[in-house]
């Protein structure tokens, strides 16, 4: 009887010690993780700020004034004029109708259609 009692007490004592130790280890680990998290958060915050500054820089680099200057220096492009945009049907495809006629059995009808559409 006494033996069991003592053994139980010893078991409880060991368990308590174990739990206390485990808690201590856990706390330590959580503490380390929190420290790591704070560090990561700090890095993220600084990255967010850097991205913000880089975005502003990108905005400056994309300013129409600068792009205009670069385009005139490196490309032979001009402003588009209204008359440069034309309808497809105004384009002079010389062989278009004969090609269609050749490909189709109903060549004549198609030819007519193409003509009327123009």
């Amino acid at each position, binding site marked *: 009887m*006494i033996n069991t009692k003592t053994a139980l007490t010893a078991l409880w004592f060991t368990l*308590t010690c174990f*739990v*206390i130790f485990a*808690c*201590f280890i*856990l*706390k330590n680990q*959580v*503490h380390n993780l*929190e420290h790591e*998290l*704070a560090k990561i*958060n700090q890095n*993220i*915050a600084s990255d*967010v*700020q850097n991205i*913000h*500054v880089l*975005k*502003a820089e*990108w*905005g*400056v680099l*994309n*300013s*129409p*004034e600068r792009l*205009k200057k670069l385009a005139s220096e490196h490309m032979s492009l001009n*402003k*588009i*004029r*209204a*008359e440069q*945009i*034309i*309808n497809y*049907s*105004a*384009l*002079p495809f010389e062989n278009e109708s004969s090609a269609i006629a050749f490909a189709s059995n109903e060549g004549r009808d198609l030819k007519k259609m193409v003509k009327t559409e*123009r």
Partner: protein
Amino acid sequence: MLPLGLSKKNNSFYDMDQTRFSRLETPLFEESNNLTALQICRNRMGIAIFAFLIIYVFISVRIIMVCLPHGIKITFPEEAYAVHASSIKSTISRADIVDRNGSILATSLPTVNLYANPKKIQNPKDAAEKLSFIFPDLNYDDIYAKLTKKKSVFSMIKHDLSPAQQAEVNALGIPALEFQTSEKRVYLHNNLFAHVLGYTNIDNVGQAGIEKSMHQRLTESSKPLELTIDMGIQDTVREELLKAVEKYKAIGAAAILMDVNTGEIISLVSLPDYNPNIKIPLDDKKLFNFITQAAYEPGSVFKTFNTALGLESGKVKITDKFDATKPIVIQKRTIRDDHAKNAWLSVSEILTYSSNIGSVKIAEKVGKEGQINFLKNLGFLEKVANFEISERARPLFQNEKNWAPITVATVSYGHGISVSPLHIITAFSALVNGGIYHTPTLIKSDTPKVSRRVLSEHTSEQMRVMLRDVVLYGTGRKAEVPGYEVGGKTGTANKATNGSYAQSRVTNSFISTFPTSNPKYALLVVIDEPQGIKETWNLRTAGMNVVPTSGKIIASVAPQLGLKANFDINTQKAHIKAIQ
């Protein structure tokens, strides 16, 4: 080796104990007098055990509490995430402003401010000397005064240090100097959006434009504020206006481009403008936003609204003709035509040839009440409501009692009433878009702003045809851009100085829409005090300066807006042949 008392053979440890207890207990039980003493003893032992138990429980709980990371507080994942998210929030507190395509127009950059704690300063002379060396723009005496400020623990020395300057100040190693993180508003495109965005003061509080009116929104949410302005188009418009100001030696110019079907403003330029990154005095004329703040007599541009008034009232039909052969006299004042045709003119011709006499006759036919109500309906008699730039002009006009026959007459051709360009373009959009008045806006939003019908669709359609005629045959010919069916109306208004009109000082306007068959955009260009040049035969009328400028703007802006040019097929073919 087994510990003492645990050997199987010799368990005398327990035996010895038992005998000790039996020796103790036997005499006690034998003497009945000591019975109560024994009970007291037991009770005391019980209390002691109980007390120790409580102490041990308390210690155990305390040990567990100490060992747990946050005591016994349990953090749920969502809560933990919220804490995490808040810890990585950007340090920038004022939201960006972006254009309709998401390009950044205004942003805030992190900076540091330098301040001193005068109570901690040991050698102010030395510190002031070193600081004035680092900041050449600061005066030694000023710094010294700031460092020796009595009864103060905070004395701002300089805002917005560069990283290099911060490093230099740090290297001085003066403990009284401290840094404060801050932010500085930066306008990436300098002058380009000056009159749209406005500017902020040193404490990042909006002082003009969008910065002022949307201050609360910009500080409450970090989400970028999206405008309806298009950066590319804004740049094109400004470029053309700058060229016009230089060419015609004008004192200023302004332009506004509006989507007629939504009221969204695509471009708003007012010249002269300023660089909002640089502090400028408040009385500088460059701060004046001509589009919203100017109340000016629009001149013949107003005939557009007069014609619409006539047609909408039903008292004038498009087939009617009016006698414009001789000047008319009202209240001893003679009204003449600038481009006199000396003939009977149709409603369309009155607009095409910009006849004052004809316009007066239309207005007279409708009458005072009709005119006032129509102008009120088009928003001309009050500030433009709910617009996002708070610096807006109040229109100037005679009050209803003094609205005499001469007022009816002069208002018909845009004199005797002063309105802002914003008024004109908003009303004009309603005139051409089928008759719906849309509140103008600079902020892109999914929910449309308030709109109301002010004109019948039929009148709007008639107006479009007549406006097209002005560009094809009338005063607006130089604004014609092949393919884009421009329609519009010119206006040359003499400036009123000291109670009379100065002949040499004019404000020219051209209001236009394109394409007239299905209007998408409206453009108002104003040139302030253009001079006659050789190219214009020294003339300074609207047709000579503001009209060609508008034409150029439309020609370069329309393809950017994604408008398809509407050409006659034969013209296109001829064009292709010419290229070949």
